[in-house]
């Protein structure tokens, strides 16, 4: 099963679609989680997920905006989508009835 950060990364990459690359994924994670995402954590996790076959990466074109440096593009594989879905389902199941879940009816004591 995926780890929390792995799930966040896959979800961010999937949401960005064709525009998923290091800086964009990092910005997406930071804006949605309101937590800093270090380059080290990002790239080591991308490598780990790629080794598991959940992501595919390749070097993109050189861009002037980045000082003529290439982007490391990321695409979520079908296996990655499945792993993310399993993680999400597990979180939903385990959260069922938890006091902080909005749909729960009843009092919080």
């Amino acid at each position, binding site marked *: 099963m995926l780890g929390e950060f792995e799930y966040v990364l896959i979800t961010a990459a999937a949401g960005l679609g064709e525009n998923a*690359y*290091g*800086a964009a994924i*990092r*910005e997406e994670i930071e804006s949605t989680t309101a937590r800093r995402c*270090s*380059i*080290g*954590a990002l*790239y*080591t996790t991308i*490598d780990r997920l*790629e*080794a598991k076959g959940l992501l595919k*990466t*390749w*070097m*993109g*074109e050189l*861009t002037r*905006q*980045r*000082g003529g*440096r*290439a*982007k*490391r*593009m990321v695409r979520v594989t079908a296996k990655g989508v499945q792993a993310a879905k399993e993680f999400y389902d597990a979180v939903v199941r385990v959260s069922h009835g938890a006091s902080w879940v909005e749909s729960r009816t009843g009092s919080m004591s």
Partner: protein
Amino acid sequence: MNGTGWPLVEIASKLLQGDERDAVLGDLLEANETALQSLLDVCGLVLRRQTGLFRDRRPWLAGFGVALPCGYLLMYVSISVSCTYARLLYPNARILACRPQGHEGFLLLLCHILLLVAWSWTGGYILGSVSRLTLWASAALSVLPAFLCMRHLPAGFPRACLFLFLLPATLGGRHALRNVRVTVGLSSVLAISVTVLMIFAWTSNALWIFNWVLMCPAWYLVAMARRSGHAGRMGSWPLGRATYSRAS
């Protein structure tokens, strides 16, 4: 991006592999991070990468199984060559007092020098091939014995004599990093030549018994060249590392 600190970031990023360095520096430029934050980010990634490398057994094997013992033995060979050279050419020099009292004669000295160069080069080449990304650690371990022995040198003994092995070893490592091919034939000739020279020196009581250990890299080179088939280039490490392809 603060221009004054950026060169430091670029220097630190040299410890990353080419494609990853490009991607990381580009990301930092795009995010318009401060130089300090960029430096911390790059150092953090380098630290994670290096830590990851040492989870494998090869850097440990290369460092403590090859670099450290070979560095220790080669340091003594360097001292022996220096002493013999000094005794032969400068009989009245103060260096006469130094130990070990090695072999005598120009032929044996030549043999000894050739062995020192060959052992050092093959050792450096093997280290560069087996643990190319952690070569800095192996290099540090190989010179550690020499640095520890510096304080015990007799007065007047040039300290540089401890490091005679360093130049050929560095060349060997450099050749490995540049993927210089060593064919089966060439490695075999090298290993056989070194063995013949060793036997010659050994039968003349010119070398220590532990110097036989230094034969291992030369024969390991032959074994690896044979295994890899057409060339002596070792498989780069880590083997399982993700590779990227540049989009056309």
